């Protein structure tokens, strides 16, 4: 298992190389010249050209990429073209916010959606099931920024219970986490219901009942564990989604996270930031996927990694 984990971590290297190369390729296709954007308004064509040469933009895309990778290998993620600040330092500052948001919302989503989904599977086609199904549809249809604004109006503006934006205290996390995990609770509750329902009709669950096991044991011990694999896969991808895709939430709540950093950089084609962010995000997604795969083998003895 250790060997497998090591192999998977080593496999991250070509993955990250591929992803960053792809980013360089895509960005080279995007029209517009970063040097022209960066140069002062009154700069002449020569000055812009000189700037382009100094940034290395006159070289072919592949050379630019190799030069970047060479620097990364030496531990240098470069500086932002615009602010001239170190990308690595900025990421170290921002990553904790995004990671906390991701970990907390995924944890809370699992704590709520797995029991709720199991309950609706056990009580399927009853009133409780219909109510939960309705709520799930409601929350997965509601855009998260809208939920965020509603939360701000109710819990900050009208009541003053929670800080409306910014970061710092644990209270700052409450509303962003709710806004992020509402839709993932909704979708994971539904998928848990489906998977548990699937397992609960299987022969071995009937065997468990035939042994005289009580309903709680039947569901918790026999059904849920077998349904858990696809459920944690869903939760894992929710986590990955938060890392790169919570830009709207970070903007609404003014959280200085990785997503806003990345999106702002894309707008001005700040390549060191874009590649730096994507590299870090893909490493984390890779690690989460690895953890989920390792969890598979813990849950299901049929899954063995050599």
């Amino acid at each position, binding site marked *: 298992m250790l060997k497998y984990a090591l192999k998977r971590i080593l496999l991250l290297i070509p993955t990250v190389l591929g992803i960053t190369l792809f980013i360089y390729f895509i960005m080279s296709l995007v029209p517009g010249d970063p040097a022209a954007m960066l140069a002062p308004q009154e700069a002449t064509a020569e000055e812009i050209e000189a700037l382009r040469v100094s940034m290395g933009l006159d070289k072919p895309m592949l050379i630019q990429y190799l030069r970047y990778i060479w620097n990364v290998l030496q531990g240098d993620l470069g500086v932002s073209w615009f602010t001239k600040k170190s990308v690595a330092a900025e990421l170290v500052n921002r990553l904790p916010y995004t990671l906390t948001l991701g970990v907390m919302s995924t944890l809370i989503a699992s704590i709520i959606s797995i029991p709720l989904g199991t309950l609706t599977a056990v009580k399927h*086609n009853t009133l409780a099931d219909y109510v939960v199904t309705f709520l799930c549809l409601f929350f997965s249809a509601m855009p998260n920024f809208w939920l965020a604004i509603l939360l701000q109006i109710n819990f900050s503006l009208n009541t003053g219970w929670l800080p409306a934006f910014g970061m710092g205290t644990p209270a700052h996390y409450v509303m962003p986490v709710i806004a992020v995990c509402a839709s993932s609770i909704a979708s994971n509750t539904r998928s848990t219901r489906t998977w548990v329902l699937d397992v609960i009709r299987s022969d071995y669950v*009937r*065997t468990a009942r*035939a*042994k*005289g096991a009580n309903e709680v044991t039947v569901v918790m011990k026999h059904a849920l564990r077998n349904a858990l694999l696809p459920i944690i896969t869903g939760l894992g991808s929710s986590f990955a989604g938060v890392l790169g895709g919570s830009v709207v939430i970070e903007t609404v709540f003014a959280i200085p996270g990785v997503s806003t950093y990345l999106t702002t950089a894309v707008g001005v084609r700040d390549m060191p930031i874009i590649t730096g962010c994507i590299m870090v995000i893909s490493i984390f997604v890779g690690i989460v996927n690895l953890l989920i795969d390792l969890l598979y083998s813990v849950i299901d003895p049929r899954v063995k990694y050599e």
Partner: protein
Amino acid sequence: MENILEIKNLKVQYNTDEAVVYAVNGLSLELAKGEILGLVGETGAGKTTTALSIMNLLPDAVAEVTGGEIIYNGKNVFGMSKSELRDLRGSEVSMIFQDPMTSLNPVMTVNDQIEEVLKIHNPQMTKAERDKRVADILSLVGIAPERGKSFPHQFSGGMKQRVVIAMALVAEPSLLLADEPTTALDVTIQAQILTLMKELEEKLGTSMIFITHDLGIVAEFCQSVAVIYGGEIIERGTVEQVFACTDNHPYTSSLFQCIPDLETDEARLKPIPGFVLDPRTVPKGCPFADRCEHCTERCRTEKPAVQYVEEGHFIKCHLFEGRRHDV
């Protein structure tokens, strides 16, 4: 002799989106203490549904008991509370399921799955006692006890079947429902399992309903036979009475004719003409009427009543009206 089980006029239907399937239609059956009954019938005749009904284990989303009752030791299983049912299942009545491939939980070790029965029904047992029982029952069904730490997927089909059997036997039930327990096994293992079950009956006086479509096994292993067709028992008697082939329901006769005779040189097997009864309809008359060579107009319109041809041997067929010879 005292009856351990009485099924009275049981009716079970499955309500699916496409159709209503009438699986069991007024089935009545009595089982004496210590009796081994072979329940014989084609696929879809209602054998498994009957067995599941006895444990009140029908899938409640689709199955519906529309009539009748099942009395186990004087109590109607359909009237039992949840906790009474839990006490019944696994310790009083246990079932060997038909499909060993899917009947075991893939994420639990074999030991844990067998031990669970003891944990539920013998809470006073210590861990060491339980381990001992599990090891004993595993060696009894021919599996080395140290293999118990394995998971079902590490077992062959025949071994899984033996685990299922061990699980059903470990709490020493009073009534064992064996749903084609040997279908998945090769002949040598089949013989071992049958011997094992026979020993259990002799040692503990376990009553059994042995569901099969193998008449050979019935002749060898069972004391009595019930033939099921279209969700009702159409013939019931001791093995000697039924296999004597003097008086048989036309369906039973044709079942016997399906067995190739080794003495004569026959090129082809003799199948029963026609098809199994469409379970979406309940015939007004005899369920076998359409396939029966003796079928009369009366058979199609009037349900035949139970006709005793001798003590303990009845046939549900108009042909046998007033044919009892020992009175």
